[in-house]
């Protein structure tokens, strides 16, 4: 009786997950696959799975003239720096917020995360004006600050949840063992925070790496990121599908691979407190 009761939902679950997986994976796989096709195959009306692969689109992306390198370096530098700052500050603030005993702590925590909930569109214009006065338009610092405005509250909130999960007994034991607060943090708390740090780092990096709206508004000739480069291929005279698919692959693959590499920690991090 029990098995027959669970049999249907289980089939249903598998079917649902399969659909979801196909929905997610097919476009990505198709994009990666097609980025190795010659232009005439990409645009052919019958889709082809078998073809002789070519690297011509990648080669042309990095060839002199209109190289992708500056965009790639901008993306790496801006996303990397803003992620680093967000995670370092988020880690420290999260630790403080988790351990401090003050009235209205939840309200403070909620206020911090609520700043992350504003839609990007709502802050773009004010930020634009602010950046113009501060001469931050078309600077790396400007974009880093823009991403921080979203990633920092998110990192603080996420790290607070991770620290809440770590019993304070451990750092107290360390302090009784003769550690200063900083040593207890360095030797006991931080090593146990790996899942939290990895999860926060990846989620922050993805946000900055994928962003188009901020980059479109605040960047200039010197600071354009990869999503901007992709958009520039959509011109009025036509769409260079081959290059576009190659850029798409370059944007997506590093994130997917990083995600797979740290899957263990990421899952542990995202299910936060669900399993003890």
């Amino acid at each position, binding site marked *: 009786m029990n098995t027959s009761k669970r049999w249907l939902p289980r089939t249903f679950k598998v079917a649902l997950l399969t659909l979801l997986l196909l929905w997610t994976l097919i476009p990505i796989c198709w994009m990666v696959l097609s980025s190795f096709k010659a232009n005439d195959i990409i645009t052919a009306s019958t889709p082809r799975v078998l073809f002789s692969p070519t690297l011509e689109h990648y080669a042309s992306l990095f060839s002199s003239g209109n190289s992708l390198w500056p965009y790639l370096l901008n993306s790496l530098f801006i996303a990397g720096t803003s992620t680093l700052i967000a995670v370092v500050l988020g880690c420290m603030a999260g630790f403080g917020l988790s351990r401090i005993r003050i*009235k209205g702590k939840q309200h403070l925590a909620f206020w911090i995360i609520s700043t992350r909930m504003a839609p990007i569109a709502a802050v773009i214009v004010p930020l634009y004006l602010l950046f113009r006065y501060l001469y931050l338009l078309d600077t790396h610092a400007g974009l880093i600050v823009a991403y921080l405005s979203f990633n920092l509250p998110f990192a603080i909130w996420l790290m607070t949840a991770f620290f809440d999960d770590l*019993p304070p*007994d*451990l750092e*107290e*034991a*360390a*302090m*009784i*063992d*003769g*550690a*200063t607060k900083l*040593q207890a943090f360095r*030797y*006991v708390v931080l*090593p*146990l925070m790996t899942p939290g740090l990895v999860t926060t780092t990846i989620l922050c990096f993805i946000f900055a790496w994928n962003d188009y709206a901020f980059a479109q508004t605040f960047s200039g000739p010197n600071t354009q990121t990869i999503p901007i480069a992709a958009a520039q291929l959509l011109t009025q005279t036509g769409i260079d599908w081959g290059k576009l698919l190659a850029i798409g692959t370059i944007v997506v693959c590093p994130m997917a691979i990083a995600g797979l590499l740290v899957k263990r920690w990421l899952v542990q991090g995202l299910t936060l407190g669900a399993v003890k």
Partner: protein
Amino acid sequence: MATLQLNNIVKNFGSTQVIKGVDLEVKDREFVVFVGPSGCGKSTLMRMIAGLESTTSGDIFIDGERINDVGPADRRLAMVFQSYALYPHMTVEDNMGFNLRLAKVPKAERREKVLAAARILQLEELLDRKPRALSGGQRQRVAIGRAIVRNPSIFLFDEPLSNLDAALRVQMRIELARLHEELDATMIYVTHDQIEAMTMADKIVVLQGGVVEQIGSPMALYHHPANRFVAGFIGSPKMNFLDVEIRGADAEGVDVVLPGGDCRVPVKGDGVSTGDKLTLGVRPEHLKIDDQGPLTGKILVIERLGGTTSLYLENGDSQWILVADGDVTSRVHDQIRFSFDPACAHLFKRNGEALLHRHCHPLVASESK
């Protein structure tokens, strides 16, 4: 070598007062147990001694030196947490040697000291394991080992045995007592279990609602409880209580009215007058079946433990527990009479305060010498 002194310690969490003025003196090498029901402030008091909580007011002295403003790292204490608080990412050896590593002790010397402590606790085989690969009892020993390696002036234990099963708890209790002997150290131990307190302590501090109810040796608390709370808390099964009326009282004793005849309890009756209502307290092991006894009851339940038998009695709305020999022949529903030695009885005033016994119990008297 370490003494500890608490002077009028108070602790508030926000607007609630959790510790309400505690005074205590701990002698060198003494084993002191804080005991009391859950939530009475035992852990808070211990955490203040450890420096993990600040004091709202009052002073803490270790070896005569005021340490209120000294951080936990510099109080030279070791603490065993209820959760053990082993560092999950370190091996047993690194866990035990962590304080030496912080003190920058060279590796060889570190290993030597860890090994010495591991030998005391039979942990040599486990030194390379991580805490998650240990059983509850082994984790417990590692936590104690870590405290030993620290070579502290005072050991603090916060309910260290409460996560172990009953058999292991008894074994660790004995081991801790042995350890106290062997290390010759001052130890403070928190528990809600009065049996742990009775079996291990040199001195018991009974706490309730942030107030010290009584401080004394196990035998002093057993034979001369200062009030009704201590009387009920110490001893197992619990002391029987009966509301009684007073026939007469003087400095030599108090005459109590009982259903089957009066009885003179040898306590100092100053301030008590005829007609007063007091509470009589008699421990189950001091009640005995007695056909001429002044008390009666019907047996509700019999628990035979082999060596002793517990009889649960009822008479009207009063309940009694009587601990008798293992081979009593009474049966459930029997109506029995019972009595007690008045010298073993206690009388409590309405406010719970005990009337002083005229004679000090010989065991207690010999302790104070």
